[in-house]
Every structure is written in structure tokens, then in C-alpha cells.
């Protein structure tokens, strides 16, 4: 970058001289970022601007401290999650769901929240590499130009592309275009995660319409492309005082999932026993079944009959064919197409132009049919099953290229590694699970010299780069017909293509679909593979927020483990943390044991995402690599698992250690029409009440709706600049989350009840913390906020000791990232970054309250209910959290708090918490 000011002589030691070549220094980046955001909606992002102008005249749209919002979309297993991204001075800082997007409805999940951190990950790949050494795009373009000519002469024979399945119309159009130009090139697709299509169709459902839902190994509330919609629909039928509208959820699953934790009747069952159970539900023989299964089957059978057309069966995408078919048959029998239907397969793994998966590619490589291999945005060396031996097969191709955000396990083995743009840096488009098209609008110019997959495909085909902006517009210009520019502006504004514009339906191959899993044979235990609840297939392994986010039911952080039911662990004589050797099908790995309540005996669950070797500084070497045991791509179960204790022990870090309520009145349950506990009497006070004019901020959390998905925790972390502390500190109990989700278990087996209790600050009216602070660093606002004055805090930690809810967090060390780390760019400028030695805690997002207040004052109106939404509330897919003004009797929060059953935690202490709860709903079937 030339000196920006020509009057200033070139520095002897210029800033950024120590940066790797081709990277953009922080200062340059900030200038670029500012300029790019100003132009983001107008001109798109091509290659970085060659001329830079200082802020002689401040761009109208950029006001320091004031956020700008742009609609965009994030790929989630290839499908769209519609987002509204918040940007400060041109840098994206926070993601919210786009209320216009049918699949997010304004909500987000934890991974989406954390994805903004990955944009600023210092370990991201910053420049092309050739053979491991820094190179440039020019060098790659030159080399590819020569190879492309040779390939073109053969019609593309020998060229193989491996990409992740996606719904992106532009990517698929580019891919088809490439295949037209180089007809003998092959397009392979690989994902370690489930397919959502079967015979060219993908199942969808109206969860909110069903009175009875039977989920068979389906974690549809969190682990599904439509999970946010499903969770919203489900929770709307699941209010604490739902009355007759309350739905009923049956779950049969091997390991406890978020969905299972919401069940009214839950049966832990091995996948191998499902067939017998389903037959029994159909009216078959029940005599041979164990009592729990028999009871579950007969109860469900009666209930299904009772509900007729209002019953819905959902089979998880990991389930085998017969389960899928049974669910489809059951839905057909209930006869309501309104409840369940099959839509067209939207993802490209159903595309007839696809030449297959990783196994087919490995075969082609071994047969010497591939000379040039281009891997786009996936990491098959890590996520491929060991049977394919993909790392060795890579050497069979003469020319290998990897496009990825990280120089990961695949990137380091390929001849060329090229940086891929983050989704917030690149133009694109995606389809939601229901088929709604969304435009993926970048918030920022690429931080490093990177390209998107679609741009890369265009370049591979033509040998000439074209900006992603043009590619996306090309796709949509054809579909829009008249007035493209006007429509385009509207789409960008709302983030969704909602004016009836339709692209031609992508071709769908009726055959194939989900790889059929032969029912594995063999005795021994069952081994189940699952994507990690936080890290997915391993793509988020270098995301520190997700590493430190407690796994829903074990609260394990920074690691993965072999999950065993406590009974099985007892039988094997192993305890939590004991390292066991898992051997299955001739493969073996060692893994520490974690106890998983609610898991069927006789199975072990392992999660992907651990054991990375080239993920980056955060993800490397955390946990073990479960792919090493996986028999093949798309296989979710293996039988004949054997376990041998190794005698070793490994420290696992959990954020919660005690999961029983021990008779304490913390999480409450209620039943539809059940009597709520009597409201606590007002204990009064010897002192006259404080005069409280104006607003009275308060929160209500409906445990009946809360699915415990952790989205609020991640959203809070993103909004409030909450640092990660790392495994050592987390082990010491020093994690910093301002809102945590306490998990409590009651009962066992099919009688297990699970409560997720989100715990933000209670903002007690009689706050015990305020009384004991010697310097008045925590005080009450006139609007009822329990405020933390960081500047005044000397760090006695007495407030935390006296907080009965233990929601206060302390900066034992300086947990801020190093001063030169790009992650600072993520931080919310409206929230103080806390220094070492001060206490912090949930503020009810006071910065959002103030922002809304200022906006209302500027507009000359009073604050309205709903103007302020806390970060946790906004992220919540289940609408479990409501925040607002208690002084307004018509506000949503006041209405909620007037509902019967509203209760505060530990009100015996007369803390008078402003955060209160509605009890968890359980809606069991009446006894037949």
C-alpha cells in the first residue's frame, strides 16, 4: 500500500512492515472498512478500491457510535439463515435474525451469533500459498491459465471439483456454466453432515399446527436448517399458560437432545430397537418389549389415534431409511398435507450434474482419472471418513487447489491454498429450507486477499476473475425481468427475494439422495456419530466463543468426549474423565468419558469437531477426532463397538458440576390447567418504598418455551464484548458468560425430566450485591437496573459472594485479546471493555435501552413497548424471553408477569427480582 499522504515521507519503519505480504494492516483496513461500508449497498464489493480518500467529508451513513444495519444471509449446511447484520464504522459486530426471512423469523442460533467472530479470526488464511509458502493470486492465475488451456483442449477431462452442497443459485449456475464449458470436468460434493433430501424431495412440516409431535431421533428444534422456524412454531404452542392449545411432544432417541429435553414423553432407545418400537406403535406385538418401551408405544398409539390428523411424525435426517419411511407413512395416514409435506430438494447434493461424493472422488483419483483437483470450501482430509484415505489420494492428482477460510488439514496438503472470503465479505445468494431466496450481502470488503467459491468457479471456468456482485446480479437479472434495479434494491433492503421473482427450479435427481445405511451387524455396543452441538462438523473448531459455550447437557467446554450413560459407565467401571479406547470395525481411538444423562444404555455417542491439527490456535489439539471411527461418509451408526479402559485420565472442563435441584424450588413445572403455586405474599419492608418514577425495566422468561439452545448465551457474548477465558480458566470456574443456562435433571430413564433455566442478572429491587460494595460500584438506577460501575470497582468481589444467583463475573486476569488482534474489530463500541480486577454482569443491555431512549427522544415520542429488545431476547428462537417496562401495565412483560404461575427465584430472601419465570410446561398424555 503506498503512503496515503504524499506529503509525508515514507517511514523508515513503516507500520505494518512486519505483517505478512498481501495482508492489509489494521489502519489500512479500518480506512477500507469505513469506505466500503459507505458503498456497501450501492456499488458492491469488487477488488479493493485502488484509491482511498480520507474523511474530509464524513460519509452520511457513517456516524461513530451509531450502528448501520444490512440484511444478509449465512449459509447453514448450505441453506440460508437470514440475518440483519449490525455494523459500526463499517465493521460488522453483531448478527440478528432477519424477521423477513421465513427460516429465521428474527431469531438466530449460537453458531450464527458466533460466526461474526470467525470473520476476525487471526488464524484465517490471509494470502495464497503455494507449497506452503506465501504466494499471490497473480501467480496462481498465471499457473492456472496454462493448466486451463491444457484442460480445455481435453474438454475438461481430468478436472475434478469438490465442493460442499449448497442451495446458492449463483454458485450452482456458475458450476453448470463451468460444466458446460468443460463438459468432461466432474463436480463432486462432500459434507460430513446429514442430507435433507430423499428421492429428490425434502420433508418439511408445520410444527406449529400439530397437536401431537412424535420425533424419532430428530433434533428438529436446533439441529436442522429450519430449526429456528420449527422452534418458533413449537414454542408458540408451548406457553406456560398454554391451556388447551398446548401441544404434546413424544421423543424416542438414543442420546438426549435439545428436542428430547422438551418432550412430554421421552424414551431413550437404541437405534437398533427402533424397528420393533415402531412396529408396536403400528399395533404390532408388544409382548417382547421392555416395560418402558411397551408403555411408551401403547400410550403413543392411543394418542396418535386420538389426534388423527393433528399428529406429526418427524424422523431425524440421521435416521435410517425404514424410520424415514415409517414417519412418512404415519404422516400420510394422518392425512393432513398441511402438517407435513415434501418439497423439492433445494441443495445441490440432489443435483443430477453431481458426480458423487467423496468415495467416488477417491475412486476417480485412485484410477488416475483426475489430474487437477479443486477443493472449494471444504476440508475432506479432516471430515472424510478414513475409509476413503483421502489424504493419500490427494497425491494422485498432479495439481491440487484448496479454497478455504483456513489453511486447514486439506489446505496444507494441497499444492495451492487460496483464501476464501467469509460470508460477511462476499456477495452471494442462498435458499432457505422452505425455498425462500435470500441475498447474501457483504458488510465489509474482504479483510485479506480472498475470493468466494462462486467467484472461484467463474475464474476456473474463464481464467478471468469477475466480482461476486456481478455474478449474483447476473443470476437474478435474468429472473427479475423488468425493473431489475428497483427490485434488486428492495431485495437488498429486506434481505429476501419476496416480490414473487422466481428462478427456474434447479434440476433435481430423483434417484439417490441419502446414502442408505445398511443396518450394521455385530454384537457389542452401538457407536453413534453426531455433529458437535457447537462445532458442527468441525468448521467452528477455531471459534473460541463456541469452544467455550457449554454443551447443552454435559456443559463440557473446550473438548469433546465419548458420552456414556451413567449406568453404562458404572458397568464398565469408568468414571468421568477416564480415557477409554473405542474400537470399532478395526479402527480405534482414545477418548475421555463424559457422563450423559438420558442416554440409552448400550451406546456411546461421539461428536465431530475435535482432534483438529490445522484448525488454528484455538481449535488445534482440542479433543479427539471422531471421524477416525466413522465407517463412511454419511454413516451415523456403527455396531460392534468395544471399549477398553486405558487407565489414563484426562481433565475435562465443565461449567456446571451439580445437576440436581435437591428439592430446591428453582425450576418449576406446571401442567395445562394445573394449579400454579400461590403467589408469594409481598413481604413488605421496614423502609418506605423507593419512589420509582418513570420506567421499571423487567424481564420474564417462560421456561415452558425455552428450549435451552444457548443462542442467548452466544448473543450476549457478541453484544456485550464478553471475553473468552480459555480452558484453564474455565476449569477454575472463571468463565465470563453473563447469562448461563442452568441444567437440572430429575428422574431417570424414560422418566427423566430436564429443565433449562436461563440465568441472567435478576436485577433485584433489594439487591444484596449493592449493600455490601464498599465503594458503591454497584448501584440501583431509578429505573430499577442494578448497575455495575466498572470505573469505580476496586474488586473486593463481596458482591459476588452475596449474590444468591451467582450471576456476577470477575476479571481475574486481563482477558482481553492481545492489542494487535483483529478480534477487537468485532467489539461493540457502545459497551465498555472491562479491565483486570473489576466485576461485571448482565446489564439488561443498558446500551440498547439508552439507544432506544435517545431514538425516541429524537423522534419526539415516548418509548414504546418493544422498542428495546435485549440481545438474549432478540436471539431467542422460542420467544421465551420478554423484556420491557413494568410501569406500563399493557407492556408484554407486564402481561406476562400477571400470568398465573409467574415466580421469582429465591424470593424468600426478599430480593424482589425483576427477572421472573413462568414454569416449565409438561403436558403428559392422560392415562388411557
Amino acid at each position, binding site marked *: 500500500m503506498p503512503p496515503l499522504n504524499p506529503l509525508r515521507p515514507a517511514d523508515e519503519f513503516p507500520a505494518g512492515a512486519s505483517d505478512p505480504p498481501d495482508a492489509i494492516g489494521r489502519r489500512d483496513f479500518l480506512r477500507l472498512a469505513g469506505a466500503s461500508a459507505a458503498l456497501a449497498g450501492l456499488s458492491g464489493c469488487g477488488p479493493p478500491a485502488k484509491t482511498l480518500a480520507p474523511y474530509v467529508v464524513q460519509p452520511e451513513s457513517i456516524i461513530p457510535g451509531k450502528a448501520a444495519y444490512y440484511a444478509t444471509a449465512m449459509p447453514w449446511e448450505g441453506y440460508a439463515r437470514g440475518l440483519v447484520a449490525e455494523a459500526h464504522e463499517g465493521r460488522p459486530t453483531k448478527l440478528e435474525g432477519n424477521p423477513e426471512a421465513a427460516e429465521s423469523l428474527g431469531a438466530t442460533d449460537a453458531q450464527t451469533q458466533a460466526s461474526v467472530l470467525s470473520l476476525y479470526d487471526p488464524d484465517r488464511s490471509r494470502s495464497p500459498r503455494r507449497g506452503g509458502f506465501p504466494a499471490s493470486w497473480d501467480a496462481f492465475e498465471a499457473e492456472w491459465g496454462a493448466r486451463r488451456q491444457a484442460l480445455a483442449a481435453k474438454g475438461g477431462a481430468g478436472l475434478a471439483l469438490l465442493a460442499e452442497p449448497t442451495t446458492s443459485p449463483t454458485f450452482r449456475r456458475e458450476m453448470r456454466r463451468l460444466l458446460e464449458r468443460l463438459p468432461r470436468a466432474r463436480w463432486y460434493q462432500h459434507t460430513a453432515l446429514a442430507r435433507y433430501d430423499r428421492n429428490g424431495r425434502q420433508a418439511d412440516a408445520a410444527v406449529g399446527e400439530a397437536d401431537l409431535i412424535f420425533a424419532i431421533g430428530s433434533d428438529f428444534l436446533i439441529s436442522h436448517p429450519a430449526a429456528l422456524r420449527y422452534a418458533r412454531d413449537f414454542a408458540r404452542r408451548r406457553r406456560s399458560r398454554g391451556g388447551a392449545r398446548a401441544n404434546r411432544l413424544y421423543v424416542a432417541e438414543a442420546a438426549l437432545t435439545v428436542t428430547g429435553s422438551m418432550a412430554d414423553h421421552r424414551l431413550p432407545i437404541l437405534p437398533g430397537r427402533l424397528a420393533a418400537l415402531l412396529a408396536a406403535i403400528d399395533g404390532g406385538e408388544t409382548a417382547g418389549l421392555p416395560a418402558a418401551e411397551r408403555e411408551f408405544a401403547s400410550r403413543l398409539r392411543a394418542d396418535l389415534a386420538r389426534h388423527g390428523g393433528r399428529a406429526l411424525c418427524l424422523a431425524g435426517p440421521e435416521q435410517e431409511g425404514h424410520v424415514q419411511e415409517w414417519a412418512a407413512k404415519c404422516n400420510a395416514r394422518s392425512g393432513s398435507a398441511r402438517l407435513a409435506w415434501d418439497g423439492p430438494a433445494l441443495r445441490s447434493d440432489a443435483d443430477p450434474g453431481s458426480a458423487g461424493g467423496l468415495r467416488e472422488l477417491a475412486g476417480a483419483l485412485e484410477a488416475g482419472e483426475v489430474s487437477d483437483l479443486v477443493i472449494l470450501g471444504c476440508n475432506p482430509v479432516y471430515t472424510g471418513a478414513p475409509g476413503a484415505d483421502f489424504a493419500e489420494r490427494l497425491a494422485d492428482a498432479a495439481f491440487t487447489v484448496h479454497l478455504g477460510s483456513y489453511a486447514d488439514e486439506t489446505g496444507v496438503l494441497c499444492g495451492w491454498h487460496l483464501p476464501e472470503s467469509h460470508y460477511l465479505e462476499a456477495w452471494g445468494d442462498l435458499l432457505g429450507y422452505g425455498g425462500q431466496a435470500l441475498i447474501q450481502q457483504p458488510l465489509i470488503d474482504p479483510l485479506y486477499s480472498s475470493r468466494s467459491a462462486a467467484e472461484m468457479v467463474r475464474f476456473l471456468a474463464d481464467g478471468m476473475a469477475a466480482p461476486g456482485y456481478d455474478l449474483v446480479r447476473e443470476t437474478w437479472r435474468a429472473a427479475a425481468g423488468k425493473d431489475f434495479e428497483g427490485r434488486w434494491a428492495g431485495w437488498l433492503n429486506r434481505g429476501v427475494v419476496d416480490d414473487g421473482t422466481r428462478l427456474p427450479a434447479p434440476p433435481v435427481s430423483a434417484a439417490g439422495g441419502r446414502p442408505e445405511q445398511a443396518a450394521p451387524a455385530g454384537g457389542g455396543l452401538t457407536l453413534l456419530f453426531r455433529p458437535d452441538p457447537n462445532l458442527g462438523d468441525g468448521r467452528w473448531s477455531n471459534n473460541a466463543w463456541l469452544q467455550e459455550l457449554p454443551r447443552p447437557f454435559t456443559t463440557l467446554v473446550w473438548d469433546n468426549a465419548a458420552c456414556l450413560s451413567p449406568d453404562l459407565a458404572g458397568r464398565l467401571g469408568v468414571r468421568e474423565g477416564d480415557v477409554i479406547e473405542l474400537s470399532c470395525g478395526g479402527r480405534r481411538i482414545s477418548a475421555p468419558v463424559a457422563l450423559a444423562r438420558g442416554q440409552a444404555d448400550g451406546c456411546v455417542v461421539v461428536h465431530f469437531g475435535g482432534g483438529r491439527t490445522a484448525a488454528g490456535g484455538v481449535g488445534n489439539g482440542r479433543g479427539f477426532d471422531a471421524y477416525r471411527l466413522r465407517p463412511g461418509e454419511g454413516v451415523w451408526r456403527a455396531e460392534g463397538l468395544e471399549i477398553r479402559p486405558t487407565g489414563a485420565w484426562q481433565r475435562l472442563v465443565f461449567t456446571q458440576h451439580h445437576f440436581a435441584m435437591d428439592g430446591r424450588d428453582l425450576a418449576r413445572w406446571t401442567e395445562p390447567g394445573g394449579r400454579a403455586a400461590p403467589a408469594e405474599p409481598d413481604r413488605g419492608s421496614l423502609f418506605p418504598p423507593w419512589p420509582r418514577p418513570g420506567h421499571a425495566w423487567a424481564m420474564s422468561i417462560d421456561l415452558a418455551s425455552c428450549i435451552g439452545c444457548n443462542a442467548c448465551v452466544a448473543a450476549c457474548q457478541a453484544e456485550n464484548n464478553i471475553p473468552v477465558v480459555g480452558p484453564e480458566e474455565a476449569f477454575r470456574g472463571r468463565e465470563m458468560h453473563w447469562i448461563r443456562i442452568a441444567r437440572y435433571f430429575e428422574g431417570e430413564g424414560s422418566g427423566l425430566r430436564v429443565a433449562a433455566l436461563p440465568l441472567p442478572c435478576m436485577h433485584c429491587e433489594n439487591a444484596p450485591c449493592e449493600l*455490601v460494595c464498599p*465503594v458503591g460500584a454497584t448501584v440501583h438506577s431509578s429505573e430499577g437496573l442494578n448497575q455495575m460501575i466498572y470505573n469505580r470497582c476496586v474488586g473486593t468481589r463481596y458482591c459476588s459472594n452475596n449474590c444468591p444467583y451467582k450471576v456476577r463475573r*470477575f476479571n481475574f486476569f486481563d482477558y482481553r485479546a492481545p492489542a494487535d488482534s483483529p478480534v477487537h474489530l468485532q467489539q461493540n463500541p457502545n459497551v465498555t471493555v472491562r479491565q483486570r480486577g473489576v466485576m461485571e454482569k448482565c446489564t439488561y443491555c443498558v446500551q440498547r435501552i439508552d439507544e432506544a431512549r435517545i431514538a425516541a427522544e429524537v423522534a419526539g415520542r415516548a418509548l414504546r413497548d418493544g422498542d428495546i429488545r435485549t440481545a438474549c431476547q432478540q436471539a431467542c428462537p422460542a420467544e421465551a424471553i420478554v423484556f420491557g417496562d413494568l410501569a406500563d401495565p399493557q407492556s408484554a412483560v407486564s402481561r406476562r408477569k400477571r400470568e398465573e404461575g409467574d415466580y421469582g427465584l429465591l424470593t424468600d430472601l426478599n430480593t424482589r427480582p425483576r427477572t421472573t419465570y413462568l414454569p416449565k410446561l409438561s403436558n403428559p398424555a392422560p392415562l388411557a
Partner: protein
Amino acid sequence: MNPASPIDEPVYDHALDLAGVDEGISRVPLQAPHKRLWLAGFAVAFLGVCSLFSGVAWLLFRGIGTWGIDIPVAWGFAIVNFVWWIGIGHAGTFISAFLLLLHQSWRTSINRFTEAMTLFAVACAALFPLLHLGRPQYFYWLLPYPDTMGLWPQFRSPLVWDVFAVSTYFMVSLVFWYAGLLPDLATMRDRAGPRWKRRAYGLLALGWRGDARHWVHYERMYVVLAGLATPLVISVHSIVGLDFAAAQLPGWHSTIFPPYFVGGAIFSGFAMVLTLVIPLRKVYRLEGFITDRHLDLMAKVMMTTGWVVAYGYFAEAFTAWWSRDQFEMFSQTNRLLGPYARFFWIMLICNVGVPQLLWCARLRRNVPFLFVASLLVNLGMWLERYVIVVTSLHRDFMPSSWGWYRGTRVDWAVFVGTLGLFLALLFLFVRLLPAISMTEMKMLVTRKGKVQ
């Protein structure tokens, strides 16, 4: 000043005359017997001081996270040590002021030494509230000073009361100790050999000449200071007790805490006096001044206050049980049977079991036994504070936030460091100043002569 002790047994060797008193006591700082032993002991203590400095340096450099504290156990060694040291600091003023007002003449032989012990213990204690702050550089925000922004401490917080209680106690104890030293410093000035020593003692003696008016003022002031110091003995540890009692944590929130803490403080203070006096009188042959009868009396005080402490334990458990409050009851059960139960039971043996042996008169005169018993009581009282602080915090209201605690190497370095500092200061004191009040001993001898 003092009537004769009503007990027949003498509280000093009656063979001593006035010159013998001066000689026997001033010999230690002036002639420095057992130089090597002293040096060796001081070296060991100095190692402790080094440990303190390195621990504190690391703490200030890296932050409070180098300690074992966490959420929920946000207080750990620092508060345990603070309360322990403050408790030890109780015996001195109790002995010199309380017993003075109660006309216990036996206190004369030990009051000087125990007052010094008090000062040093409180100095050690005062380190911890400073060091345990997340931002120790702002400790002065706890003081009421005219801040430009009009900010004051938050007076409802017991920590602010602590600041006043401890600093007042330290100041009054210091003045009391120094005022009592004045005539002795003059004696030292008169007996010291080298000129510079006489100069130094002379300066410290503030021009004491033994004038009758000096004596009149001296005696008046001494009684007044004793009157001032006496309530402080009660208040300082009551307020330390309120640090806990004012919180609403089960296991802390108990009205028994202030008296129970005062009892415990005197208990541990006397234990520490025994621990220190037994080797001191042996090495410097002060048995004529600190007789077996002193040890016997101190053992009796220890036994009595041990019962106060035992009653405290009982009252806490009983109140919890009587309240039927599930959190209080759990807190007690967790103490007795939880993961830190072994500390509780060791504490109980040390603080309740061991003192019961002192019912036996023979054991009260058995010096080695008393020494071991006093060490055990010191240990027990440290554990008591550990049990109160840690077991209450680590499992409170919400099972989801339950945690654990363990001191780190830095915690130990600082704790052992204060032990070193304490001993080092005592070594210096014994080496430089008369460890027994010559003035008051001579008064005793004179008065006895008159009685005879």
C-alpha cells in the same frame, strides 16, 4: 497501680530484686545472647519475607487470578489469613488493656511481648485486604476522603467498617505499646554501652527522665489508653464477624458471629502467645519472669475461650436446624459431610477436643504439651476460617453454580510469607527492645516489698 494478685502463687521469681529485673530483661537486647541461634531463626523468617515479596510481586504483576479464587468462591486464602491474623492480634491488647483493668497482675510479664505480637499480626493481617482487591491501586477509595467528584465510601458495607475498625485498632495498639515502652526505653538508654545505642534509645525515649510528673502523666495516660483499647478488642473482631454475618449467605448469615469471632480471636491469640513465649523464655532464660503459673493461666483462658468457640459451632448448627431453612441446613450438612468435611473435623478436634485436655492441671504445666496444643489450636483456628469462608461459598443457593476452591502456590507463598514477616519482626523486636516491661516488673517487685 495494681493490687496484689489474690492467688498465692507468685507471678515471678521472688528472688528477683529491682536490679535483677533490669539486668535479666535488658540483657537480651543489650548483650544479645545466643547470637547464632538468633541469626539462624531470623534467616529462616527472612526466607519467609522473600516468599512474601515474590508472591506479592507476582500477584501484582499477573493479577488476582494467580490465586485460587473463582466464582462462586470469590474469597479464599486472603480473607482466611486476614481473619486469622486479626484474631491472633487480639491477645496482646486483651492482655495488656483488658487484664489491666481487671487488675490481673500476672499480665505484667507478658503484656509487652504480646502487644508487639498484636502489632505485627495486625500488620500482617492488614496486607490481605489490600492485596485481595482486584485493583489494589485504588484501595484508598475505601477511605472517606474529600474526593473531587464527591464520592464517598458506601457506609452500609461491612468492609468499610472493617477499614475503620482495623485501622483504629492498629493505631491505638501502637500508641499503647509505645507509651508503655517509654520508661523502659529510658532504662535502655541508661544501660546501653555504645554512644550510638544510647542516642538511639534516647531519641525513642522522648526525653524520659523519671520525673515525678512524668510518672503521673504516664500512669494516667496508660489507664486512659487501656480504657480506649478495651472496647476496641471487642469491636474489631465483632466487625470482622459482621463481614460475614451481614451477608445473606448460609453459613455466614448468623447473629452469633460477632461474639463467636471475638471468643475465637482471644482463643487463637492466647494460643499464639503460648507458641511464642514457650521457646522465648527457654532460650533467654526468662523463666523467672514468665513462670509456669503464667502458662497455666493462659491455658485456662484458652480453655475458656475454646468453650466460647465450641458454643459458637453448636449455636450455628442448632440455629440452622431450628430454622428448618433448607439452605441453612444444607450449609451445615455440607460442612460436616461435604467435600471439605475433613477440614471441619480436624478443626473440631483442634479447637474443641484439644482444649479439653487442659482440664488436667498436670498438662497445663507440661510445657512441651502446651506448645503442641497451642500449635494445634493455631491450626484449628486457621481451618475454622477456611471452613467458614470456603464451605459456605462453594455450595450456596443455586446448585448450578456450585464450585470448588483450592489455594495456589501464590496463595501459599503469600501466607507463608506473612508468617515469615511476623517472625522476622518478632526477632527484631526481641533483639532490639525489652520483651518484658521492666517498669511494670519493678512495680510488682516494689509493691511486694511493701506488702512484706
